[in-house]
């Protein structure tokens, strides 16, 4: 019962703040609503028995990525020009497409059987298992990520550097 209460509260906050992020005018407010959503996602990870991922989620998403976002928002300072209104037809088309997507996804989820099954192991996956899987089964993707990060780092520096003539 406690889990259900927790789940419902987290879902309501997550979806509500995601909606607030979508309708917000000020990019800083949007970023803060998104941070709240990320917190709720970290909460989901906790209830799903992945406390390590919850901590990493907070460190990486709220601690690094969103701070980077705030940094850029402050540099770009888009407040001085209000975002032009999106044409109503455009908005309608976008919402329709999203609604279709939602219907498809919900349909896919509900028609599959067996997803409501309770896991046999209440302890879930231990951190040790994750680490072992990461360094044996998924060794190549793991190493490729480091290459990806390196490339991203170089790319970011090249792109954001001021041209020196």
């Amino acid at each position, binding site marked *: 019962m406690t889990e259900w209460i927790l789940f419902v509260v987290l879902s309501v906050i997550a979806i509500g703040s995601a909606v607030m992020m979508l309708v917000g005018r*000020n990019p*800083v*407010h949007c970023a*803060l609503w998104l*941070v709240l959503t990320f917190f709720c996602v970290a909460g989901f990870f906790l209830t799903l028995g992945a*406390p*390590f991922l*919850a*901590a*990493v989620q*907070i*460190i990486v998403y*709220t*601690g*690094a990525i969103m*701070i*980077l976002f*705030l*940094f850029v928002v*402050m*540099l770009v300072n888009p407040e001085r020009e209000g975002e032009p209104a999106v044409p109503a037809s455009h908005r309608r088309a976008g919402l329709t497409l999203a609604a279709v997507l939602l219907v498809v996804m919900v349909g896919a989820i509900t028609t599959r059987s067996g997803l409501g099954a309770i896991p046999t192991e209440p302890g879930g996956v*231990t*951190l040790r298992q994750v680490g072992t899987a990461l360094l044996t089964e998924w060794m190549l993707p793991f190493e490729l990520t480091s290459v990806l990060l390196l490339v991203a780092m170089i790319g970011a520096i090249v792109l954001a550097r001021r041209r020196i003539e």
Partner: protein
Amino acid sequence: MEYVVMAAKAVVVFALVSGSMPFIVWAERKVMADAQARIGPNRVGPFGILQSFADALKLIFKEDVVPTGIDKRIFYLAPILSIIPALITFAVVPYGGPDLKLFGYPVGYVADLKDVGILYVFAVTTLGVYGIVLAGWASNNKYSLMGALRSSAQMISYEILLGLSIMGVVIGSGSLSLVEIVQAQATPYFGVIPGIWLFAQPLGFLIFLIASLAEANRVPFDLPEAESELVAGFHTEYSSFKFAMFFMAEYINLLTLSGVITTLFLGGWLGPGVDRFPILGVLYFSVKTVALVYFFIWLRATLPRLRYDQLMRFAWKVMLPAALINIFITAYWVAR
């Protein structure tokens, strides 16, 4: 019942941490005064020990100035975002061993997060940046914004060092849990030298110490509020109780970081005779933490503030390679 005990512990730790903050401020003012051949506060109470309470009273009753053109909601949110992480970090710091029992319940720590432990400390200290960044942005003041931008860059840089420098300890202890990290320091080296990580990880300790100074915005890394250049940095526009909250957060962070360093590198509650009398552990922990706080104050009395480019260069070109070298050495030593 278990939850009641946990809540009671949380309340006690919360009260102790926030209650010791006025005395840290007082100690800082006294030690700084000593170092500068002054007397320091000596009017309110014996040796001026109640000075912080008088200051708090004054701050609460002062006029709350709200500048024009600000983002009001965020302006009010920022001090709260700054103080909450400062207060909740201490929850995982073990101030006594698991043997320390009161009425049959272990009371050595509020929570021992097995798979998270030290990551919780990082996750929470990261959130402290939000208070500073948002305060600077919401104030509608260019100095505040400069302070905020500086602090976000500084904190992101030094957070990486914070994480990398404890990897040695984590690899050596084989656990992320702070309780287990302390327990891993129980066996002495060669039977005589205390087995604390300070001796096995001197480089890691040094990097963690410096990075935590930067993370707490302490001198010599107090760039976000560099008085001489940025008026008061991110809290220029804050007054009254909102300023007091930033102030409290700063000193509680100092205490928390001292506690974390004690746990990670100085053996936490460990000390002679602690296995026979577990209550001694609390004493050892407090003594080590207070000594570290004193050291930080002493550092503040000594060192000048770094320039911004020096700060960044130091982080990325000196500390980062050193931290990586430390990880390699430790990994080699463990895998050997």
